[in-house]
């Protein structure tokens, strides 16, 4: 904890947050929000939470900003202004914010001190994980082992939540008919972007390496910051890069909609399937040590490590498919004909 850097980064974050709200242009607000996400990731790195910082960098600063820009692309850039009742709405917002802050401050007074070593979490739980992880599962990264093994149920439902989010976007936006009753008129200034040789060349050269890096992040999650979520998002971001620099139809030719949804399903099924396999072999759900009966030449400890790798692969496949699906649906307004 370096207090000098803490103070400077926090000042920058507060300025970015104010700027996001006050700028009267939705595209600029989305871009400044991207800068806010960059700085939040820096703050978490400085506190030592590297896995969280990695996820914030890939999801918040990368894909989320692109999704905001895609949404602004298909709707408007103007900020809606109320014609009447502005003072009342601002007063209500101020009172609500102050009340929520007051409630949170009163709740925070009951928390233990910041680095107190005698809280129940630090006395009973953390020493167990710190001392037993390498001995139980042979995985040096404690965050990955807690995420994928000791608390495997939560991660399975997180993956299901991501899958449900993709389903929700499809349910709201996807339209199959050519003409539709609720079709909004096209915005005014529309034009086809001319093909840009430099961006296409660089994207074509970089995308294989980006995908290789994403696979490395998934596979190396046991020993370094990384894991399934971050690797899947970076893989999806490589497809988004192709879709931005080339035509939308070209990426649909590579990854069709049918295969995309199939991959999303396969990802969640791999996770639940491994848990179910453990059930079939005679132990509890998601108890990987019985996989040593099926995998050749592993003992119970290495079977847990391999089980964690299996579910990380499932999470990565699911996240990759859902990120691509959400981007496709938002940027083409559900029609899958042309996009950003």
């Amino acid at each position, binding site marked *: 904890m370096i207090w000098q850097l803490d103070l400077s980064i926090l000042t920058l974050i507060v300025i970015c947050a104010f700027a996001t709200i006050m700028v009267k242009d939705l595209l600029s607000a989305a871009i400044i929000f991207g800068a806010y996400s960059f700085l939040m990731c820096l703050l978490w790195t400085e506190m030592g939470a590297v896995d969280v910082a990695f996820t914030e960098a890939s999801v918040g600063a990368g894909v989320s900003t692109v999704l905001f820009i895609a949404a602004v692309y298909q709707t408007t850039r103007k900020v809606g202004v109320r014609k009447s009742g502005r003072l009342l709405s601002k007063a209500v917002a101020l009172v609500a914010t102050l009340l929520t802050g007051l409630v949170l401050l009163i709740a925070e007074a009951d928390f233990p001190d910041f680095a107190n070593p005698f809280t129940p979490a630090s006395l009973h739980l953390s020493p167990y994980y710190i001392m037993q992880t390498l001995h139980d599962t042979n995985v040096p990264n404690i965050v990955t082992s807690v995420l994928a093994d000791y608390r495997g149920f939560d991660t399975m439902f997180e993956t299901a939540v991501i899958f449900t989010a993709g389903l929700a976007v499809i349910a709201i936006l996807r339209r199959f008919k050519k003409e539709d009753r609720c079709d909004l008129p096209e915005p005014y200034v529309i034009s086809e972007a001319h093909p*840009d040789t*430099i*961006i296409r060349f*660089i994207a074509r*050269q*970089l995308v294989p390496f980006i995908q290789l890096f994403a696979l490395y992040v998934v596979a190396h999650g046991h020993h370094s910051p990384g894991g399934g979520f971050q690797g899947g998002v970076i893989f999806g971001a490589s497809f988004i890069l192709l879709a931005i620099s080339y035509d939308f139809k070209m990426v649909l030719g590579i990854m069709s909609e049918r295969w995309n949804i199939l991959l999303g399903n396969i990802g969640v099924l791999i996770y639940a399937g491994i848990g179910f396999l453990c059930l079939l072999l005679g132990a509890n759900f998601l108890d990987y040590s019985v996989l040593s009966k099926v995998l050749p030449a592993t003992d119970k400890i290495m079977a847990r490590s391999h089980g964690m790798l299996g579910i990380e692969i499932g999470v990565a496949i699911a996240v990759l498919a859902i990120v691509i699906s959400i981007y496709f649906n938002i940027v083409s307004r559900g029609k899958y004909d042309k996009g950003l």
Partner: protein
Amino acid sequence: MDIVVIMLTVIGLFSFFATTVGLLRFPDFYSRMHAAGKGDTLASLLMLLALALYNFHEVNLANLLVAIKILSIVVFIFMASPTATHAITDAAFESGVKPWTKEPEEES
């Protein structure tokens, strides 16, 4: 070794400072892009080189791998940052941002 690291870091920091001053003070969008695109890439190269050299307190395989990874970041920034500069400048030109011209001097 420490002297080299400190010198490279100071030169990199000076390049970042020149980039930022150029970003604030140039009168025109296109000159600001010159400052941002070129100065940023050079400054990143110098500072990342210094941080890769700082690693070598003891020369073994792990430190060599970390230095190679930092150099791969340098290669990536070299390829990607000028492309991003080109993309932004192209967008500005297509959208009609006008270059700054000097007003003609009045005849006295």
